[in-house]
């Protein structure tokens, strides 16, 4: 059976992935909205920035985060002095790394679903007396829901597996930033850690299967709600 240290790694992974997904969601929806529904100067640049973590090696992303948000980085310094938030070597840092890495996947899924929403339905709602905001919540958002759900699922899954950016930016500290992949890596590096690595891998697999099953259930429920087959 896994030891408490291993359960800690599992628990930390879930916490990091959940937090990263929850905090990314509003930003991802905003980014998806800007990319799908508006045209402004710098839209292409935004598109590139959002997608950068998808094409850059994770280590590079982690390094860039370290430069920007580390204790000597200007943004990191400001966060530390203003709010007392330190990201390096903390769970917060692991969350940021996971969020940044999974962000493009989430934006893509939400953007596709937003683009698939028939704007004719939104105009119909306006002629029925709904304001723009009302239309967003009563028509657009419900119709985007499949994309939002799948965006969250991919983001959560990729956050669970995040390794490179986390170890580079937030480091590998037990109980703080040592999520399952980092724990597995550490176990493999440790002499006689094979059994531990194996147990962690089993945990990972269980988690993956469980998450997939949940995703399937969520997807079905949303589809039924929207009356789609």
């Amino acid at each position: 059976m896994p030891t408490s240290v291993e359960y800690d790694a599992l628990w930390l992974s879930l916490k990091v992935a959940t937090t990263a997904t929850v905090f990314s969601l509003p930003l991802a929806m905003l980014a998806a909205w800007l990319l799908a529904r508006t045209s402004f100067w710098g839209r292409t640049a935004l598109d590139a920035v959002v997608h950068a973590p998808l094409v850059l090696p994770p280590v590079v992303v982690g390094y860039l985060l370290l430069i920007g948000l580390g204790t000597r980085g200007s943004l990191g310094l400001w966060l530390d002095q203003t709010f007392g938030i330190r990201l390096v070597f903390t769970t917060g840092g692991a969350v940021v790394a996971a969020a940044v890495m999974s962000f493009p996947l989430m934006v893509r899924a939400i953007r596709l679903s937003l683009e698939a929403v028939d704007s004719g339905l939104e105009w119909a709602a306006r002629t029925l007396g709904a304001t723009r905001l009302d239309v967003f919540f009563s028509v657009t958002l419900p119709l985007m829901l499949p994309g939002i759900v799948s965006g969250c699922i991919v983001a959560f899954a990729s956050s669970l597996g995040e390794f490179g950016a986390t170890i580079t930016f937030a480091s590998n500290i037990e109980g703080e930033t040592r999520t399952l992949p980092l724990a597995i890596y550490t176990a493999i590096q440790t002499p006689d850690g094979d059994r531990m690595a194996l147990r962690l891998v089993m945990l990972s697999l269980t988690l993956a299967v469980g998450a997939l099953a949940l995703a399937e259930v969520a997807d079905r429920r949303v589809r039924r709600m929207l009356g789609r087959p």
Partner: protein
Amino acid sequence: MIAVTVRKQFGSFLLDAVFTAPARGITALFGRSGAGKTTIIDLIAGILAPDAGRITLDDQVFYDADLRIALPPEQRRVGFVFQDSRLFPHLSVEANLRYGLRRARAADAPVAFETVVGVLGISHLLPRRPQTLSGGERQRVALGRALLAQPRLLLMDEPLASLDAPRKAEILSYIERLRDEFRLPMIYVSHSLDEVIRLADHLLVVSDGRIAASGPLADVVSRLDLQPLLGRFEAGAVIDCTVAAHDDHYVLTTLRFDDGELRVPLIDRPVGERVRVRLRARDVSMAVSEPRDLSISNRLAGTITAFAVRDGVFVDVTISVGTTTIRALISRESRDRLALTVGQRVWALIKTVALDNRSLGLLRPPRA
């Protein structure tokens, strides 16, 4: 009164429309595809913004470029029935119907949910999803949804376009019922003269982004100069009649209008009801002396007021029968053989069998 003066440029297409229409009854916007009909009602609803102009309904300004007024669609209280119905797929039929109703102010709500559901016969559909409805059912729900938002004006953009013939007839009769039950002014966009003649009181002919003609239906339909826009075999006159008598022995109905009578195959309407007859020009023949020994029973005496030669073969003859104008399409050869002239007294002959169901629009009298 709906008053519209708008300009809107789309690439090389310019919409430059000026018209007024009465804020009662049904006004038809008729024209070919691409003439600008849908653009005009999109501008009235606020779905599109004009480049310049002014749009008002009675004393309310929807849009005024000079005053910088552009009311958003949700504040115009203009209902819209789209060609593709646009029901919300994530809501049940009932929730669709209540969408606009919930957002209407209580003071503006004379149209009750139960009434609309009853008139449109959709109570059995309420728990269903729009995806499971047939095309005709969907349009009925869309009509109900628009009505329940308590509009002051209802716009309909070719609501029958995606339906088959039996469904078309069904929805047409529902639209007639709505017109009579709710006394709501409507603008009806169509490229089918059949639908327009059956429904409309007022007709606007749209061509190349402009209003080519505007006026009471019967006047516009009988104008010779609009022929190219109305189409050759559509040409004719519209006569509003009243059911005068039924003849069960010969299975005929007599219809009376201001200047005469018409015998048509028996129609299932009580005596006294209003009926609109469409007299196609190609179904009308002419005689220069009062005909006898003829099978044709409908004979209307009148005076020729105008000719128009069409394609070199046909002549379109306008005949005044009292205050009613009818049209006859004859060959140019016939005109010359009979030596017809303007001012000449003639008899217009209409075969009873030519007045089939297609030419009879069944109007119901407005409720007192």
